[in-house]
């Protein structure tokens, strides 16, 4: 393991814990990991069949993670990204390549515990080779200032029979400004699930764009989003799926809760089919928390606030 044990490292690990990360994954040599604070890599660990390289770029780090063919990475790879300073800009430009028939999962925790004005730009290029499987779960922990500006960009290409699961969760602290832009190009018999769960408060502004192009026969893709908006927060979801190949299937599932006067949610599904043997569907619901769910919990003795909290926690879990 290559770790620069410093106060900075300890602080970022502490922030990582607050974001929900398990530090075991950073200290145990059986877990691949990389720890980045600001523009510096503080620690890195590889496991057999998985390679991590990096280089400095302006305002950030370029990271390359590749997995050889036929490798089943047993433990999730832990990615700890964050910025301890109050202000600044961080760019993490990452390339993921997962070899044929390999399987891997990532747990990424992004922490900005003292952010007053921080820009975090996460650009990911993902290539999954034939029958490769990748799960990427990204969880954020932000300060309460609202001064965090996060731009997660994903461009993924899925080979024949590949599978991608991408989850983005942000429910602790203020969102600030979040602009998600995901685009997935799917090959034959590949599958993709995009899942976004965000809790917006005060004047947080959230934009989510998820585009799936079903370009291979029998490809299937779903874009699912769960947003809860309170106070004056606004959420805007654009789900886009194109069915371009025979027997491909796509589905958009958007549920946004608007709990207070002043909070705003919009959902725009954009679905198209260019092959008559493809089928794409969508469902969307926006509004207050379902009355029946609320009253069921109240009929068991919970007050309204506690009932709302339980329902919201479930939705965003």
């Amino acid at each position, binding site marked *: 393991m290559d770790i620069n044990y410093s106060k900075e490292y300890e602080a970022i690990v502490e922030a990582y814990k607050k974001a929900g990360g398990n530090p075991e994954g950073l200290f145990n040599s059986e877990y691949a990991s990389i720890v980045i604070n600001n523009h510096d890599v503080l620690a890195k660990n590889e496991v057999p069949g998985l390679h991590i390289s990096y280089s400095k770029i302006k305002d950030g780090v370029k990271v390359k993670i590749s997995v050889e063919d036929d490798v089943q990475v047993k433990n999730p790879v832990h990615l700890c990204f964050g910025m301890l300073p109050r202000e600044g800009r961080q760019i993490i430009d990452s390339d993921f390549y997962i070899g044929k028939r390999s399987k891997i999962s990532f747990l990424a925790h992004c922490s900005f515990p003292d952010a007053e004005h921080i820009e975090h730009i996460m650009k990911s290029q993902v290539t999954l080779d034939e029958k490769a499987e990748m799960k990427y779960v990204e969880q954020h922990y932000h300060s309460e200032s609202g001064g965090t500006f996060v731009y997660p960009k994903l461009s993924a290409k899925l080979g024949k029979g590949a599978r991608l699961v991408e989850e983005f969760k942000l429910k602790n602290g203020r969102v600030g400004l979040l602009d998600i832009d995901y685009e997935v190009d799917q090959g034959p018999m590949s599958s993709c699930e995009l899942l976004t769960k965000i809790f917006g408060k005060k004047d947080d502004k959230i934009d989510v764009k998820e585009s799936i192009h079903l370009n291979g026969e029998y490809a299937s893709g779903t874009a699912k989003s769960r947003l809860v908006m309170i106070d004056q927060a606004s959420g805007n979801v654009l789900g886009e799926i194109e069915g371009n190949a025979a027997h491909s299937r796509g589905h958009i599932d958007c549920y946004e809760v608007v709990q207070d006067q002043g909070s705003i949610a919009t959902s725009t599904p954009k679905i198209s089919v260019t092959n008559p043997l493809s089928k794409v569907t969508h469902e969307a619901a926006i509004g207050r928390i379902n009355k029946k769910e609320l009253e069921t919990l*109240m*009929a*068991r003795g919970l*007050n309204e606030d506690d009932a709302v909290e*339980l*329902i919201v926690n*479930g939705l965003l*879990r």
Partner: protein
Amino acid sequence: MLELKNIFYSVDNKDILEGLNLTVPDGEIYSIIGVNGTGKTTLAGIIMGLEGYKPDKGSIIFNGSDITDYSVTERAKLGITLAWQIPAFFEGVTVYEYLSLKDGNGKPEDYLDFVGLNPDKYLGRIIDESLSGGERKRIELASVLSVNPKLVILDEPDSGIDMASIDAIRNVIFSFKKAGASILLITHNEVMASMGDVVSLLCEGIIIKQGNPYEVSNYFKTYCYDCTSMDDPKCEDNEEAMIASVDNLSGKTTRK
């Protein structure tokens, strides 16, 4: 235990309940039977105090206190609870969490055992559409059990479930009674209604007959199955039925 006094309720000028009176005694099963659209579910909503179910007139008395203006939570804290005909789903909420809403005498696993569901299989399940109708109904009853209620309102507990689940649900209802709770059992099924110590027949917002399970269930089978409207009633004494209401204290049908 529970008294409804002269309850009137209407929606868009359509009368749903018209001067309804009933008394659910302590520790008894009180069945309300009626065909679809007679006001049974409305009655459940009014007793539980759900949004949009405030009576236009009349009062609800629970253990001597007037609770007509109480909120749902306030009523629940007094021991009143409701199991809906079609229970709600809770995305992301586990059965364990759902059965741990109140610190009771038992544990979530005990409540599941009680309704015939294996805790090892169900405690970690999410309360969503992956559950069958029967499983969801049983979990709903386990949830009712978990809050140790004094009055349980069961709205069509047998609807949409298989025969095996019906037997389990009947056993749970009897065990509520054994534990000392009163049960208001709302159903359109005379077999289910016959579990009641008392059965009342609700027709277009009024109780037209009340008595022992055998008598009322037979009446229901004979006259209500083919009756689509009180404009064309099928019961033996049509005029009487139309104007009748029940004096619950005496248990006899009296004229208005």
